[in-house]
């Protein structure tokens, strides 16, 4: 109803008739403009005319935006090009469906690896561009807060606030926070006082139980639109699905009893899958890998065992003795996680030594400069002399041999700049055209390097595992000269070439030195967890819930087990903890709905 105005100018549009709409006047914008007027005496007309023209253009373009014509496609085009984001048609269709037929409330239940985060980012941005959303709360597992922050910043130009203090909830329009933090006081009380335009919950299978604190908390948050992201909307029972849908649209599946009566045959079977599918299609979108989404070319993994040269072996063994000695001295064998973590820099030394002596020498030199202990200085001096005496570079030889067997292009990844230089020197000697890529390059320079590699070089030597934004689909060979600690970085490395646009099978070569820490890491990642062959990416939240620090877990094994057999046995146990459990059936929902692959 139009309020009655005190102004003498008031003329009621239709006296006595309520309006079928509410009028919202942007008082903040009006006050800002009115308060700026007195200072505008010197403003030239041309800027004002241009400002009005810009608003006119923007408005006309917005009025031309339809469900088919999304605003993000134009707005994010530059960002996506710069960051190598390919907006897949099925992802853009998700935005259209959420916008047109779901009224901003959806369970995004794509299989792992199909980019649910990107889809959610697209929806958030589209809603913001259309003026439908301003305040957005994103609740995720603590380990994913940074990843969400970086994705929104890099791929959508949204600078969100990562919640750290109780004041952050009200400080920014877009806040990313851990669900576990958000649901506790005092944060909970502050959040429940807010009015959010959009609420996004990642890993939403944590809301499957209606009696849980998580569910009750999320249910109580005031929002207009809501996105729930999970690849496993049902893990054990159909009732979990009812819980999720009720968060979005209470009543859509009826009450819990009605749902059981109408839709469920038992806990894991639908009475009429087709009927359930039809009802769910109004609130849930699920894509599976295949012809309509993402279909990757085959990936072949080739282990390349490398035997260290005698002097490299001597250096590595001396380093290992030193690390074990330090472990005993500092009590790391006491199994205290903190003590083990304090030894990680020393274990990195071992990894550097199997990458190249040059990489380890740099670290040793720095340690020596920082050391105040005479005994430690003597030990480090001894290691330095062994490192300087290293003859040959077994891995570089293996790489050259690999390159000789093919005439295709290769990307060689290493963790260390010193190793990068060593590889480049060997490629120079062998007369192989190469170019270097590292994290310090500007975006423009990265593009230049990419083009130079595509047109002129045979080998790209990169220290940047992510290589964010730069993709090399024209190349199909990846060499892990050394292995990163973080398994996710393996996928980031391979993902530079093994993505949409790659037309040939991809070959991954893992150079691993025998009887070193590298061999153990490779055993765990390749043979136990099969990470190199998976194209779906890691479920990082699941990993970190079981092994908070992958590095610390490996370090503990390597430092505490005496024999090679004992190390492998412990790695087997660690692998079993990390592998998916039998009752985690990501495809249960597909079976319930009768959509088995």
């Amino acid at each position, binding site marked *: 109803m139009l309020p009655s105005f005190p102004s003498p100018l008031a003329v009621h549009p239709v006296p006595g008739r309520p309006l079928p709409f509410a*009028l919202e006047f942007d008082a903040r914008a009006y006050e800002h403009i009115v308060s700026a007027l007195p200072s505008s005496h010197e*403003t030239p007309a041309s800027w004002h005319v*241009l400002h009005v023209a810009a608003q006119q253009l923007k408005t006309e373009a917005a009025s031309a935006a339809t469900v088919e014509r999304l605003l993000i496609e134009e707005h994010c085009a530059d960002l996506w090009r710069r960051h190598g984001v390919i907006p897949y048609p099925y992802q853009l269709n998700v935005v259209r469906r959420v916008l047109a037929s779901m009224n901003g409330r959806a369970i995004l239940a794509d299989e792992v690896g199909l980019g649910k985060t990107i889809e959610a980012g697209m929806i958030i941005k589209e809603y913001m561009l259309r003026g439908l959303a301003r305040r957005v709360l994103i609740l995720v597992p603590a380990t994913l807060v940074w990843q969400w922050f970086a994705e929104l910043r890099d791929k959508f130009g949204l600078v969100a606030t990562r919640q750290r203090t109780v004041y952050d909830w009200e400080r920014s329009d877009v806040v990313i926070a851990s669900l576990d933090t958000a649901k506790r006081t005092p944060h909970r009380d502050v959040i429940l006082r807010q009015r959010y335009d959009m609420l996004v919950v990642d890993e939403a299978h944590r809301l499957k139980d209606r009696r849980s604190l998580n569910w009750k908390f999320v249910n109580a948050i005031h929002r207009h639109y809501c996105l729930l992201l999970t690849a496993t909307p049902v893990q054990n029972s159909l009732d979990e699905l009812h819980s999720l849908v009720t968060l979005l649209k209470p009543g859509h599946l009826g009450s819990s009893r009605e749902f059981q009566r109408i839709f469920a045959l038992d806990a894991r079977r639908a009475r009429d899958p087709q009927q359930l599918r039809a009802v769910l299609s109004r609130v849930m979108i699920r894509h599976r890998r295949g012809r309509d989404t993402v279909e990757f070319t085959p990936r072949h993994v080739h282990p390349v065992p490398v035997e260290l040269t005698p002097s490299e072996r001597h250096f590595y063994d001396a380093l290992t003795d030193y690390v074990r000695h330090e472990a005993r001295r500092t009590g790391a064998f006491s199994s205290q996680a903190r003590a083990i973590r304090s030894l990680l820099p020393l274990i990195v030394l071992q990894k550097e030594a199997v990458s190249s002596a040059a990489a380890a020498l740099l670290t040793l030199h720095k340690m020596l400069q920082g050391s105040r202990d005479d005994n430690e200085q003597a030990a480090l001096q001894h290691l330095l002399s062994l490192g300087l005496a290293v003859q040959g570079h077994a891995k570089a030889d293996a790489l050259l041999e690999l390159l000789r067997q093919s005439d295709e292009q290769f990307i060689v990844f290493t963790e260390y700049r010193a190793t990068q230089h060593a590889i480049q020197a060997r490629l120079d000697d062998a007369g192989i055209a190469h170019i270097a890529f590292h994290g310090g390059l500007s975006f423009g320079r990265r593009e230049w390097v990419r083009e130079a590699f595509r047109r002129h070089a045979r080998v790209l030597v990169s220290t940047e595992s992510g290589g964010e934004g730069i993709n090399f689909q024209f190349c199909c060979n990846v060499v892990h000269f050394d292995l990163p600690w973080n398994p996710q970085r393996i996928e980031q490395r391979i993902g530079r070439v093994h993505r949409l646009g790659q037309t040939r099978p991809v070959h991954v070569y893992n150079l691993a030195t025998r009887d070193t820490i590298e061999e153990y890491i490779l055993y765990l990642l390749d043979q136990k967890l099969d990470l190199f062959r998976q194209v779906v990416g890691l479920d990082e939240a699941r990993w970190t819930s079981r092994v908070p620090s992958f590095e610390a877990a490996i370090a503990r094994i390597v430092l505490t087990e005496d024999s090679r057999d004992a190390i492998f046995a412990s790695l087997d146990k660690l692998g079993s903890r990390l592998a998916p459990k039998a009752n985690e059936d990501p495809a249960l929902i597909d079976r319930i709905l009768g959509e088995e692959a």
Partner: protein
Amino acid sequence: MTPSPSSATADLALRTFARHFFELLGAPIVERDPDLWQVDLTPDQRKMLEPPSLLPLWLFDPSPSDTVRWWIAFTPEAAQRHPEAKLLTPHSHLFSQMEDACRRHGLVFTGTVWEADAALYRPWLWLHVRRTRRWELLETMMEAWGFDLCTGSIRRGLPPAGAALRPGMPPASARIERIRLTPDDVRTALEEVICRNEVSRSLAWAEAGLDRFYEEAAEINAYFDALTHAEEAGDAASLEEERSRRLEEAKGRLLPRVIVEPVAAALLYIPYP
């Protein structure tokens, strides 16, 4: 695909805007091809588009001390032709930067329509507003309204322009009529005239929005009624609280609204006979 005449017009308007913008900035434009321009920007000109103070500290990119060259593409195809080209469309990031620069310098304007012998000037406030109909979707349009600040009469249409319009107040020798309307009066008048305008048009969009709201409200009510009778979840008071919260959310999502956003204003002194 052949562009429609309306999209061709929009494209021309965008190019005209871009040309005027860079001319005003003092940055020379070289047309590399019809859809790809090259613009050289001095550090000061670049700051107009990328003010460092607006960047968070961790994104701060120190501006180069030399002139930088930008490539501006008007089509995605042209953007592909140069690896560093910036796409310029009304929804592109570059357009947002240009829009911000225009807003900083031209949000408001004070001017006088000069007339040699005019002895009396009357102040008018011209408001450019964005009017948005919001239900499940949005429909947006721009319009301009002039308010005679002495009598309260309202005129719809663009403000006077041309060579006679000069920045600043009328000459000191001329008399200016006293302003009788407050900003609140202007706001009220604007709200009313827009409501009247809406009512005179088709209200089918608003009625469709209301229907959707009633439909969803019925679903919510049925759900909570069932819960209350079955006593499945919690006590009655908390259920009622949740029911009203859900209905409130549905209102926010679906109830039809007309949103009025003032985007620019000009205080113009017009000679009065």
